[in-house]
């Protein structure tokens, strides 16, 4: 015996596992199939009801479709009802059996019973196919004129379905729709308005398909004539008491109002006349609607959208933006969400119109109104709800302009710290866009990019990294130094995970490493708004010695997690540093550099090995040392250098020069390259040239088909040698730099290695030393400046030399290595002795030093206690107190007993104190000392303050 539906539900609910549930359903399905086969018509409705339940749980029910057809033909209302329900749920419009229902539907629509007709209309509205729509439209049409509102409203929506399925019927139907709007019944009107909206949408689509102007169709014209009527209807709704039964929270029929506003939006789009007719009523809605309830807000929201969608007056637009501004302050998240959503949609549309044509007055006022709500939008970034944060983020991108770029970018960077990882890459790219368009100056741009990389270097895309490098390289020497100092510090602070930062940082250290050797400080000029914050904080970086720079990069590559591509860049960096530090007199650093390069000559990575060998040869060549390839017969030529007959040639002066140029400063990257890359990668519209920092140097950037900026960016340098004109570099850029180095001084050769040298060996540009004061070549400037370079056109210089067998003797060109062993110690490491106090024969002095040259704030004080009394001091205890801005760590003294020291420094008791002054530069280090000891049986305590530390340093 088949069980009741209720029992089936109970049984399914009692199942503990999915398998158990499947078994129950399978058994029941089998029973139902049997019942269907045996035509047990008394159980038909129950079986369908069971199938509905199974369907909801996701089990197959197709075998019950025909049963639904049989049920709708039943004379009993309950059976008919469940039949139609089953039909709507179990069948889709693709089902073949649906055609069978057409006749039953027609019969039921003609039924005297409104509920039976209603069921049929509802089914048509939910399920009708194109064929059914065509067949049944006349029947539906009859009901449009029905005396019963219940049927009229269902017929309206059923008609909407029919017209959607058969768009060609719209034309014949337009006149009918117009009359429908006269309906007195309030409940029917909402369906009429929806039907009209639907018809308009279909008409729009039809017109587009037929290539007509969608705003000039007959249908739209007919509807436009109804605008006054719709406006009147809306106005009636506003004056209360129209239909108390449709009140929601004291607002008469918000649903109808919302639908009316939607329809008006469609009609007012790109139509001045209709928009004008609406202006008044929209203003009325916007000002008179109560906004304490959701219903009211729904109307306001729709009204704002309509105002923004049509050709409305400026005042109205400002009003709309202000309503949204009020929404933003609402505590309800939903309201804030829609406000953010609408604002970003509006501002986006405006920007599109501005970009496309002359900026309109209205757009400007609305944007101006929006800027007033900036802080509110920014606050939304801190919301816990991701939907709201994303919306706010979207909006902020559109709000950025020249005036607020610094404040908003700071907020974006803040958000970058907080946001989920998966969004970071996207945000980085967007910040880059903002920075590109609106940067006030180069320093800010570079600063922002570096900060962004320190936060999200892991996630930043290659494009962002390239752009950072390009913008750094494009700025002046001052910024180069600043960026390099900052990046080196960031690299040191990083734990090796922000790979984008490492890539950019290592590139900069290599390229501008020489700047690191001199200290850098920058004091921003106080802006008008900054005066209240007191004196501007100056940025200071200390000078570094070459060895520590090299070690910093080495630390990065030594990490276990360091990927090969960073090691590759580090190699390039080392090669360049060989050049940058060549005459700095730090032999240890240079040796370390060469060792670091050499260590990869046996690397398992082919790329690393190749680079290591090539760079080693290159660096040697700059010193005039010929690199000899070992075992030439046994190994394939690693450098692609074949025996081309240059048998007699050694390392000539021109080779040295070429090698030096290979390692010298890169030319500035042409922005066209960046744009081109971006077009290739993203299909973006290139940024307007006028907004970018400097005009691109004349050159042939377009010729440079570079897959990768790092893979040998080469932009022709501007001709710096007087009248010489920069020749178009139409060389094959993939030609190996080592093979094609025609080094005529005026010919900037754009040559990128086929591999990825991250800029080092890539561009070879003629940058005559005298014109570039910061150009620090490996050799004394006189050589590179005065060295006559033989024109070597057509005779590719081979800096590696031909195969060794053919080389008789490398011409030794000695380059003085300038062994400046007596280089003065960096000022930072010099220690200062500050007197503490003297009491009862005990003298304490502090020997102050900076142990960490990277962190000026931290210093190390060594308290030296000397005992000038006649007896030893016992139980020595020194306590220190420091102001709040200083943190302190004390180590125990070397001894608690201070013997009589006299002049013997060996007996001095010392105690190490580490302090960190967080407000270095503004406040000085102060110490409050409390010392206690026992001298000759007397317990002595003494308090003293010590503030004699050099101002600004400690």
């Amino acid at each position: 015996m088949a069980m009741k539906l209720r029992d089936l539900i109970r049984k399914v609910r009692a199942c503990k596992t999915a398998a158990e549930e499947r078994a129950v359903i399978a058994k029941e399905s089998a029973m139902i199939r049997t019942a269907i086969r045996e035509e047990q018509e008394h159980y038909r409705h129950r079986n369908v009801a069971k199938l509905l339940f199974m369907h909801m749980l996701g089990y197959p029910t197709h075998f019950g479709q025909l049963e639904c057809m049989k049920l709708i033909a039943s004379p009993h209302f309950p059976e008919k009802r469940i039949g139609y329900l089953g039909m709507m749920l179990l069948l889709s419009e693709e089902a073949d059996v649906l055609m069978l229902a057409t006749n039953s539907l027609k019969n039921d629509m003609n039924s005297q019973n409104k509920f039976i007709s209603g069921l049929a209309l509802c089914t048509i509205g939910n399920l009708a196919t194109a064929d059914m729509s065509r067949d049944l439209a006349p029947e539906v049409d009859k009901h449009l004129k029905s005396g019963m509102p219940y049927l009229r409203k269902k017929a309206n929506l059923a008609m909407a379905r029919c017209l959607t399925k058969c768009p060609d019927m719209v034309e014949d139907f337009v006149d009918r729709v117009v009359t429908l709007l006269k309906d007195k019944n309030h409940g029917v009107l909402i369906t009429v308005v929806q039907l009209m909206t639907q018809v308009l949408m279909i008409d729009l689509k039809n017109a587009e398909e037929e290539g007509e102007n969608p705003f000039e169709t007959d249908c739209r014209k007919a509807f436009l004539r109804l605008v006054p009527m719709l406006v009147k209807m809306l106005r009636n709704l506003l004056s209360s008491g129209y239909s108390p039964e449709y009140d929601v929270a004291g607002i008469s029929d918000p649903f109808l109002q919302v639908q009316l506003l939607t329809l008006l939006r469609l009609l007012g789009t790109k139509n001045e006349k209709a928009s004008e007719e609406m202006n008044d009523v929209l203003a009325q809605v916007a000002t008179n609607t109560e906004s304490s309830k959701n219903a009211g807000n729904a109307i306001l929201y729709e009204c704002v959208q309509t105002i923004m969608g049509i050709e409305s007056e400026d005042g109205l637009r400002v009003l709309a933006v202000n309503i949204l501004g009020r929404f933003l302050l609402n505590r309800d998240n939903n309201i804030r969400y829609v406000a953010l959503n609408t604002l970003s949609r509006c501002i986006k549309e405006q920007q599109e119109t501005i970009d496309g044509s002359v900026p309109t007055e209205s757009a400007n006022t609305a944007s101006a109104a929006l800027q007033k709500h900036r802080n509110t939008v920014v606050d939304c970034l801190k919301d816990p709800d991701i939907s709201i944060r994303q919306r706010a983020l979207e909006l902020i991108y559109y709000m950025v302009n020249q005036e607020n770029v610094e404040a908003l970018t700071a907020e974006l960077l803040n958000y970058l710290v907080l946001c989920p990882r998966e969004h970071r890459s996207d945000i980085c790219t967007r910040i880059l866009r903002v920075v590109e368009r609106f940067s006030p100056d180069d320093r800010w741009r570079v600063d922002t990019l570096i900060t962004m990389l320190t936060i999200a270097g892991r996630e930043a895309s290659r494009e962002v990294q390239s752009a950072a490098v390009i913008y750094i390289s494009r700025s002046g020497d001052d910024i180069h130094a600043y960026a390099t100092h900052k990046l080196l510090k960031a690299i040191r602070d990083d734990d090796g995970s922000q790979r984008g930062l490492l890539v950019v940082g290592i590139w900069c250290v290599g390229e501008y490493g020489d700047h690191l050797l001199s200290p850098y400080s920058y004091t921003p000029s106080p802006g008008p708004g900054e005066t209240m914050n007191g004196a501007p904080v100056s940025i200071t970086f200390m000078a570094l010695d070459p060895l520590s720079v090299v070690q910093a990069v080495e630390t990065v590559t030594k990490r276990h997690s360091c990927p090969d591509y960073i090691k590759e860049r580090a190699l390039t960096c080392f090669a360049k540093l060989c050049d940058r530090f060549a005459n700095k007199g730090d032999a240890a650093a240079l040796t370390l550099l060469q060792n670091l390069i050499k260590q990869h000559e046996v690397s398992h990575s082919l790329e690393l090995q190749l680079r290591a060998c090539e760079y080693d040869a290159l660096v040697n060549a700059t010193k005039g040392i010929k690199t000899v390839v070992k075992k030439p017969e046994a190994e394939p030529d690693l450098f692609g250098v074949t025996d081309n007959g240059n048998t007699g040639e050694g390392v000539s002066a021109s080779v040295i020069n070429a090698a030096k140029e290979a390692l010298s400063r890169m030319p500035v990257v042409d922005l066209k390259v960046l744009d081109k890359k971006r077009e290739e990668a993203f299909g973006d519209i290139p940024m307007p040239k006028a907004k970018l920092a400097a005009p691109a140097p004349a050159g042939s950037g377009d010729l440079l088909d570079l897959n990768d900026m790092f893979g040998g960016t080469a932009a022709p340098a501007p001709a710096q040698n007087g009248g010489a004109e920069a020749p178009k570099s139409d060389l094959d850029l993939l030609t190996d730099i080592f093979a094609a180095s025609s080094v005529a001084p005026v010919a900037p050769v754009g040559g990128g290695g086929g591999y990825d040298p991250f800029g080092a060996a890539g561009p070879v540009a003629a940058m005559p030393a005298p014109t570039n004061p910061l150009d620090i070549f490996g050799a004394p400037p006189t050589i590179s400046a005065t060295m006559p370079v033989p024109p070597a056109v057509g005779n590719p210089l081979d800096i590696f030399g031909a195969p060794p067998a053919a080389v008789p003797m490398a011409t030794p060109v000695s380059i003085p290595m300038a062994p400046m062993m007596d280089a003065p110690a960096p000022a930072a490491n010099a220690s200062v002795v500050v007197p503490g106090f003297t009491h009862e024969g005990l003298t304490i002095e502090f020997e102050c030093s900076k142990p960490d040259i990277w962190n000026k704030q931290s210093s190390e004080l060594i308290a030296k206690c000397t005992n000038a009394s006649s007896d030893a001091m016992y139980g020595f205890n020194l306590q220190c107190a420091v102001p709040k801005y200083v943190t302190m760590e004390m180590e125990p003294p070397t001894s608690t007993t201070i013997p009589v020291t006299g002049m013997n420094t060996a007996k001095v008791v010392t105690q190490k104190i580490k302090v960190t002054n967080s407000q270095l530069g503004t406040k000085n280090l102060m110490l409050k000392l409390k010392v206690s000891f026992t001298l000759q049986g007397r317990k002595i305590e003494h308090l003293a303050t010590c503030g004699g530390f050099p101002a600004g340093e400690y």
Partner: protein
Amino acid sequence: MIKGIIIVNNHGKPRLVKFYHPVESEQLQQSVIRRVFTQVSSRPDSFCNYLEGIVPEWGENVKLIYRHYATLYFVFAVDAQESDLGILDLIQVFVEALDKCFENVCELDLIFHSDRVHYVLDEIVMGGMVLETNISAILQSIKDQGKMATESLSKTDDSQSASKIREQLGDSKWMYSW
């Protein structure tokens, strides 16, 4: 247009599934339900009631608008044309209608009388468009149809089939019950 309406409970069990924008095959429908549920249930109630573009079966630009009542999530999937805030009110209308119809609706009512839930919904939304928002009008038509169902059985009292149906359907409280 409303693309679909789903009611799921806090454990992801569907309690009402209605697609206005057809989603073929039971498997796809179930994956839609699962996807909707995982997205919706991961959000605390304090968050806003909107979720965007996470149901590929419905196409682009479909927004989920939902409300959480006790053990049930009422989720409406709508396209861009629909008013974001208006739909929230519509969900409220639907829930209130159910509440009046079942006299303090609870999840069990939805489980055992899912057909009635569908009847109520069909009086509010039809073909993805709003049919009626006046709760008393909705309740009236539901009540009238219920009455008609019993009457249609009593009228044909003599026929044997009707008595059999009545025997199975007869229930004093709901007029009929399975």
